[in-house]
């Protein structure tokens, strides 16, 4: 199994030393994110998120399947995360690393278990036909803070996604193509976002947001907090690492809330822009079709 390249002693020492003097390698503030960018694809449900050099692409898709026997009224919702060697040579296909397992668990807890998507609305015929919504997360480039970027991508993709419209008439289920009927958005309840803190120093006294890959390798511990803009915690995961004062954690949570509110506003703006862009296209297309006749 290929191993991740380890940072040298000099780098380790310097990063820590610089942090003690309130310096980050890329000149950011401790609680400053790298520039976050989001682009939607031409298709519905494709979100491409870049955070500095980290780039994550998420694609949502839906198909009609049979529900699980024990949950006949619920649709199926899955998030598939696979870290391919594309992101870093340390990742291998088919053998999930610890990082991969943790990321997929975190996404699952943040988005799925917190009930962001109303799975009951995905049910078509109880016990027989439901929508199965699936989000595939592809990490295209890994430069730290995969979790936040991946979570943002998943939520964006799902918010952007439109599933085909259906109708139910005398027991016959019809799924319409986009040409027949405009696809419909998912029934979305709230938008959770992850904010990951990295802790440095013996006592975990230095806390950073949005650590780069280099910083992640040197950190002593981390804590991922998932919130939505209403101030509801969806999940907190500080899985071991250097112990941190409880008070610090509370402060981190509060800072995270403001970040989440920023994310939320940013996503809303982007979605609105996208709708505007599409609207124009739709109208133009219609007009030109009429002219043809």
């Amino acid at each position: 199994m290929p191993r991740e390249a380890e940072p040298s002693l000099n780098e380790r020492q310097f990063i820590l030393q610089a942090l003690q003097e309130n310096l980050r390698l890329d000149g950011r503030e401790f609680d400053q994110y790298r520039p976050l960018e989001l682009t939607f694809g031409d298709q519905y449900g494709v979100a491409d998120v870049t955070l500095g050099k980290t780039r994550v692409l998420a694609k949502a898709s839906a198909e009609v399947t049979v529900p699980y026997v024990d949950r006949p009224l619920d649709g199926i919702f899955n998030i598939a995360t696979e870290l391919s060697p594309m992101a870093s040579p340390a990742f291998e296909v088919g053998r999930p690393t610890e990082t991969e397992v943790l990321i997929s668990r975190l996404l699952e807890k943040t988005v799925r278990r917190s009930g962001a998507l109303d799975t009951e609305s995905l049910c078509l015929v109880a016990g027989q036909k439901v929508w199965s919504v699936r989000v595939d997360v592809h990490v295209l480039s890994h430069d730290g803070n995969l979790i936040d970027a991946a979570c943002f991508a998943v939520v964006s993709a799902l918010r952007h996604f439109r599933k085909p419209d259906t109708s139910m008439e005398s027991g016959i289920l019809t799924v319409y193509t986009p040409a027949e009927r405009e696809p419909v958005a998912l029934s979305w309840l709230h938008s959770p976002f992850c904010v990951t803190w990295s802790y440095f120093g013996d006592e975990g006294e230095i806390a950073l947001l949005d650590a780069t890959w280099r910083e992640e390798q040197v950190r002593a511990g981390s804590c991922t907090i998932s919130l939505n803009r209403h101030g509801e915690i969806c999940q907190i995961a500080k899985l071991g690492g250097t112990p941190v004062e409880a008070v610090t954690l509370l402060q981190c949570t509060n800072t995270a809330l403001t970040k989440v509110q920023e994310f939320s506003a940013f996503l809303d703006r982007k979605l609105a822009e996208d709708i505007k862009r599409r609207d124009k296209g739709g109208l133009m297309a219609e007009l030109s079709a009429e002219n043809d006749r």
Partner: protein
Amino acid sequence: MATEHPLVLPGDTIDPSLIPTHKKQPLRLGPGLRHVPPSTILPTVAGQLVTDLRKNSMWVEYNGGRYIPSQGDLVIGQVARSATDLYFVTITPYTANASLPHLSFEGASKKTRPQLLPGALVYARVTLANRHMDPELECVSATTGKAEGLGPLAGGMAFDVSLGLARRLLMARSREEGGVEVLEQLGAEGLAFETAVGRNGRVWVGSDSPKTVVLVGRALTETDEKALGVEQQRKLVKKLIREMR
């Protein structure tokens, strides 16, 4: 000098007029070129063809990709582990380690060799680069027995840059030929720092003040990523200095 560097692709035919001719010296082919007997020369990588008439040599300059050790290159390596009489040194991640004998440091003997922990950085010269063997390094000049600037790097920070920038930085006249001026600019602004540039795309920056190191590092990486020209580099340095104060 840096004017006419035609772009070549692997397998392209090279215009015979570009091949330098010299009466005495034999033609020397640098990296990226292959000689197919009897008299064809083919590029094997995409890049700019550079010829040097004085030395009667030619090579292809290309940026990026993996560093392939070649003899005489100066590199910054990271000690992976120590064996009985040599260190295993990583030059690039995910490749076989190079070996650096314990005794090839300045003034090193069995008793006075430097003790390097795994993870320590060394500035070394490639003495053996062979397709079938792991590369070998040295930190002392075999002829003079002096370090000549090579050896363990203490403190400071290593930054990753592209191979092209590293090569340009290493040029004897990096400003004229390579078009890199950041380091000079930064020095002119009164910053005190030292650097070591490895051909493997790593630049080590040392200074008493971490602030300076961060600044130099940012200047270098930004120059590299945005492919800044000399003029823009000046602006960047000014901007960074202002930010710092």
